């Protein structure tokens, strides 16, 4: 009898809590969390930029920590709590970072913005940034090719001062 363990599994069932909602899906082992979010759960707010962990557009929070979802295999996160840009607003109110990005015009094309905001949410939770230099350093995993950096830093400073 053939050894079933030697066959490539088509799909592996996993459970995720995405933006507070329990989601059950079946994924191939090589499906990244980014592709699962965008293509399977239709949460296209999380962006695919470089797909190699260099640009930060795919940043989401896993169990409250910011990570690159493009370098994360969905199957490895079975049971995890995921927060994407779609999950930051509460009761019809924008997250303070979302409002701050609007207040400071902290984007042009907007493609990097969901990753910037999720990354900034992780940064606020970490509590390690105290000034603009530290914000810049701890946000260096998020590129903005439009060059909105000064406004992004100002937006994060606003959210930081109000949190």
């Amino acid at each position, binding site marked *: 009898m053939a050894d079933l363990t030697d066959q490539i599994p088509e799909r592996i069932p996993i459970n995720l809590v995405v933006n507070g909602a329990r989601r059950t899906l079946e994924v191939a082992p090589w499906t990244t969390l980014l592709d699962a979010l965008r293509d399977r759960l239709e949460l296209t707010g999380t962006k695919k930029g470089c797909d190699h962990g260099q640009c930060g557009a795919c940043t989401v929070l896993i169990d409250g920590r910011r990570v*690159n979802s493009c370098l994360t*295999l969905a199957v490895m996160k079975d049971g995890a709590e995921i927060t994407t840009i779609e999950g930051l607003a509460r009761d019809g109110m924008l997250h303070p970072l979302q409002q701050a990005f609007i207040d400071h015009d902290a984007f042009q094309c907007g493609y990097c913005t969901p990753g910037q905001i999720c990354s900034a949410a992780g940064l606020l939770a*970490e509590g390690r940034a105290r000034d603009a230099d530290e914000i810049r350093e701890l946000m260096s995993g998020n590129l903005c090719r439009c060059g909105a950096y000064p406004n992004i830093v100002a937006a994060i400073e606003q959210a930081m001062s109000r949190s």
Partner: protein
Amino acid sequence: MNNFQYSRARDVADAIRLLAADPAAKLIAGGTNLIDLMKENVERPSRLIDISRLPLRDIEETADGGLRIGALVPNSDLAYHPLVEQRYPLLASAILAGASAQLRNMASVGGNLMQRTRCPYFYDTATPCNKRSPGTGCSAIDGLNRNHAILGTSNSCIATNPSDMSVALAALGALVHIAGSSGQRTVALTDFHRLPDDKPHLDTNLGDGEIITAIELPPRGFARNYSYLKIRDRLSYAFALVSVAAALELEGNAISEARLALGGVAHKPWRSLEAEAALRGQAATPDHFGRAADLLLQGATAHSHNGFKIELARRAVVRTLMQAASATPQSQAHKKIA
């Protein structure tokens, strides 16, 4: 990315058993380097063995006053751990000089040691590379080699190891705890990675079927006089052209103990016991630091584009030792070099 099988290891013994059963399998923890390489078809494992849930996440004091760090502790948790911040700030600083906040949250300590020593040609499957495809040749030796190694190179490979953490661990005299089917063993961090010689496809001395379980720091932490200085083409989130980990113990202005390691210059973290010995008993002056830098850089050779690294490294060593001696370590957030 190639198709592969997925297994979740139940414990360390299970991971070792799964590895032994499939020579083309690989362990995965944070996956930050492995998945990237898989997307480029540089790594094509038959199976990924997920060790991310194994209970190797503790940071605990050892009986002799050192620190034992579980292999799965995320880089960021290690850098921000109170005992590391207080006793081993050189290590905390080096970790925070590396990668991005997201990657540091994902990457494990063991995985940091296991990231590939690499260069752009290693990533480019259209070019020859002895590290990726043994025997095909090295594209960097006569190619673009500005970022490449100046120490310990061979005719087969001039790639550099990009880890910042490992440079600090080398200077601190860290140990690597390893488990395998034949039991457990411990090696010095400086013996964990290897030079390329004629086998650049091997980055480390980890045996087939072995797994890193912990890193151990000796009690001596150099918490007062240390600095990690990383010189790179942009101010953050870039590999080092040259990095220096320096740590001193001073009695007045006399050096009683010295540690010195370089990153970005070799296939492994570069430490010279001779250079450190030359500092002991000497006054903490730029002249003595320059002599130590010369000893550390003994045998450095340049290729077409990376000759600047030799003088850059010499100056960076002197500057970092000055920072350490004056207890003004390089900030990783405020980029002005004191």
